[in-house]
């Protein structure tokens, strides 16, 4: 039903093609997952499905595409909108109107569907996604997951046969992501809708995937560009072994030679039990723990309470972060994590309680002053970037703090450590997501703060960028910097954090070493922990070492 034949596409003014000689077949009713690093061409590939490439983006396209007998290149997005629905990554940037109903009707209006039929279609689509209760609601009030489901509904209004989604869950928290993906699976299984999905979080969708398309990175040597880009496609179990970065379960399975490769924890448990019983395993408690001696500085929060308009958001929160340790702060959406961070840097004033850095209170100080000693990376690092070059961004912060002539850390050194030296004259907003985050990190760490507060730093990032971040955090850790990491990403916590604090409705409900917390809370368990209960292993390295087959860390 969907056929790409030697498709080659180059963006305008780009030096090399984004897609090179791609050939793909997708059958009717398949659930297809498109995987690959950031920037490798997944979005471009998806946009070929409905004609956005090349009609919206410009550039040159060679080869042919056929979707349900139609040619997007010739016919363009307006015609293709009846056959291919598209959902984008950012729930905030897809809606023209304010009400759910009206937004769904927008597509129908464009298609000049007669008004009498419109009502039925809107009802139908709302029903399909379980959104009937939200019909009259304003889109502003909805959660991220609800918004994305509305986006799916709008894409389905014209009854397309294919639904293409470009990383629809990367901006969402785990619960919302689950809602959205379940909705997709339902649509595929019950309605026979062909779904083509680009995702980083493979583990959630692998069990339902019929075909996995993997786009490896561009070839390392120029000479290889003449060849077709090697695209791997086929059933997941065939493609996964040849992929670079895979979810922990799969990686483990590949390393230990499990066959057939398990796609879910349930499938993997059989193999896991066998591996455990047939090898000399050791409990891993010694692998975890602070990697260096903690430094003397500490950031303490005691009995902190905050309320917004009489609604309590934080209740009696107390914890401490010492220099040289990485503490993760986890909790469901709305539990107050971001509020806590904002109180700590002075953006919000707590009702009661104390926040002290090395004994000196931070409450009442100006944010600008606090942030000399506490680096804070906000959820949207792009909010920080406005200068003309990367080097300039660092200088702006220094200038704000009057440290331009006496920088605590030479900016060039910092850029080096962040891996941005080659890009120091680039316009920050032209860079990739991971690079922009590192520029923002540079902008808040150029004052050499002793503590670092990070708010959801891995949203929308692929494995490579996450890996880079963990490396950076560990480097800083060895220098005695304390890190407080607010995140939903369990695997990140498993890899990087020493301690975990769990916040629920503004109160701390659990606090302790990561091994303890992550293995005891089902909501926050990494895959490895669920595979090997009772062993205290959290990451792939832990398991490999514990089973006696891996190298020590």
């Amino acid at each position, binding site marked *: 039903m969907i056929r790409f034949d030697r498709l080659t596409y180059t963006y305008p003014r780009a030096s090399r093609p984004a897609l090179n000689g791609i050939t793909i077949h997708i059958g009717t009713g398949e659930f297809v997952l498109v995987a690959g690093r950031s920037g490798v061409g997944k979005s471009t590939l998806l*946009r070929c499905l*409905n004609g*956005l490439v090349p*009609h919206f983006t410009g550039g040159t396209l060679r080869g042919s595409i056929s979707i349900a007998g139609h040619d997007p290149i010739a016919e363009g*997005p*307006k015609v293709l*909108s*009846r056959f*291919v629905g*598209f959902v*984008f990554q*950012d729930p*905030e*940037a*897809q*809606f*023209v109107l*304010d009400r759910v*109903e*009206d937004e769904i*009707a*927008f*597509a*129908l*209006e*464009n*298609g*000049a569907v*007669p*008004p009498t039929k*419109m*009502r039925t279609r*809107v009802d139908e689509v709302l029903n399909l996604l379980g959104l009937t209760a939200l019909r009259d609601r304003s889109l502003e009030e909805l959660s991220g997951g609800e918004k994305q489901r509305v986006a799916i509904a*709008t*894409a389905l*209004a*014209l009854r397309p046969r294919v639904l293409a989604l470009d990383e629809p869950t990367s901006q969402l928290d785990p619960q919302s992501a689950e809602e959205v993906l379940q909705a997709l699976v339902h649509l595929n299984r019950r309605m026979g809708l062909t779904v083509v999905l680009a995702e980083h979080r493979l583990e959630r969708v692998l069990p339902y995937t019929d075909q996995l398309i993997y786009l490896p990175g561009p070839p390392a040597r120029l000479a290889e560009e003449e060849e077709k880009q090697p695209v791997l496609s086929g059933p997941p179990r065939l493609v996964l072994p040849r992929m670079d970065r895979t979810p922990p379960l799969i990686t483990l399975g590949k390393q230990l030679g499990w066959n057939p490769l398990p796609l879910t924890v349930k499938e993997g448990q059989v193999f896991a039990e066998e591996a455990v019983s047939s090898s000399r395993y050791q409990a891993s408690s010694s692998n975890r723990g602070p990697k260096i001696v903690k430094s003397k500085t500490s950031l303490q929060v005691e009995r902190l309470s905050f309320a917004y308009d009489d609604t309590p958001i934080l209740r009696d929160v107390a914890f401490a972060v010492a220099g040289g340790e990485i503490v993760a702060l986890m909790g469901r959406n709305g539990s107050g994590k971001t509020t806590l961070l*904002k109180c700590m*840097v002075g*953006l919000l004033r707590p009702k009661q309680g104390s926040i002290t850095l090395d004994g000196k209170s931070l409450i009442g100080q*100006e*944010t*600008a002053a606090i*942030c*000399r000693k506490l680096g*804070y990376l*906000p959820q*949207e690092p*792009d*909010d*920080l*970037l*406005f200068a003309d070059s990367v080097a300039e961004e660092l200088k*702006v912060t220094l200038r*704000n*703090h009057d440290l331009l002539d006496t920088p605590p850390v030479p900016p060039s050194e910092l850029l080096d450590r962040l891996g941005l030296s080659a890009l120091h004259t680039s316009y920050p*907003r032209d860079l990739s997501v991971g690079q922009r985050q590192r520029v923002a990190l540079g*902008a*808040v760490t150029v*004052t050499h703060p002793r503590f670092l507060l990070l708010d959801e730093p891995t949203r929308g990032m692929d494995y490579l960028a996450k890996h880079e971040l963990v490396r950076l955090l560990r480097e800083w850790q060895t220098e005695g910097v304390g890190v407080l990491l607010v995140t939903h990403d369990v695997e990140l916590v498993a890899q990087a954090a020493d301690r975990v604090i769990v916040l629920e409705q503004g109160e701390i409900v659990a606090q302790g070493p990561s091994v303890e917390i992550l293995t005891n809370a089902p909501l926050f368990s990494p895959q490895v922990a669920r595979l090997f209960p009772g062993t205290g292993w959290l990451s792939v390295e832990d398991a490999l070492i514990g089973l006696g087959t891996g190298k020590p860390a």
Partner: protein
Amino acid sequence: MLDARAWGVWALTVLVAASSTRNPLYVVLLLLVTMAVGITCAPARNQGEGMALPRFAIVAILAAALFNGLTSRLGNTPLLHLPDWLPLLGGPLTLEALVFGAINGLTLTAIFSGFATFNQVTPIRDLVRLTPRAFHDAGVVLSIALTFTPQTIRNLNRIREAQAVRGHRVRSFRDWLPIVVPLLVSGLERSMGLAEAMVSRGYGAVSDQAQPLHTQGLLVLGLLALLGGWVARMFSSSWRMLAVGTMIAGAGLIASAVWLTGRSVSHTTYRGHRWAARDTLAVLGCGLTLVMLLLPVPLTDQSTLYYSPYPALSWPIFDPLIGLGLLGLLIPATVSARIRDRSEDDPL
């Protein structure tokens, strides 16, 4: 509630009524009518705006009175005598001039009140829906702007916080740069995402082909007629009717150009507003007002409309029939009051 189109007619009628008379009694009646409609029909919010109207009234009336008194030297009852050597201001300050100015201020207040009511009773969404088909794109721009405004405010706050975190303080104009630029850029980037989403849902420009030449021609002719007629009307009193006729013809030509463009828009509307009986009633009421004010209806004394305090101050005369005509604007209040009573009876 009334349809937004009915409200538009109402507001325009208020405007015409206010422009058509200088008799302070009528103007006060008009003002009271608009206030009454505002109080009964507006949703029960906006308490803080209660002071806006009286404040405006006081300022407008005083300022206009004063200004006119100081600059116009007509009238028989001098109150003060300013030295003659003052440029423009010299000469007697007469009571009549003050009164004349005050009446102007009163008129302005009535117009303000009418439009304030209009603003309160029509939700913005409904106004946007009124966009004629020819301006479909404009309607979409409006919708997007309205939808994005709360988001933009949130972005603004977030960006302010983000910049505070790197030591930024807003002290002068220049310090707004780190806030305005990210706001602008993130907004623009979002708009590209939005454009993609719109295109994916079948949004095509109103006319994928360029506009037919005859539509443009109609516009030119229409504008020409409008302009020509107006100039003629202003500068020569003998060809008045012809001039006005040309203007109306010009307006008609432009309207037909709009209609033609609308026809080429291939798109339908979900949930158009249903025109109800109460809307017709309200429009009829407005029609009554217009008729009584503009046309020489038998038994009414049209001359009472042209009150002038010059040369000597006199009491204005009130014709009850014309007053009754003005009450035609009160119909929305009665209609909505009835609805509200009925809905209070309904069990929730």
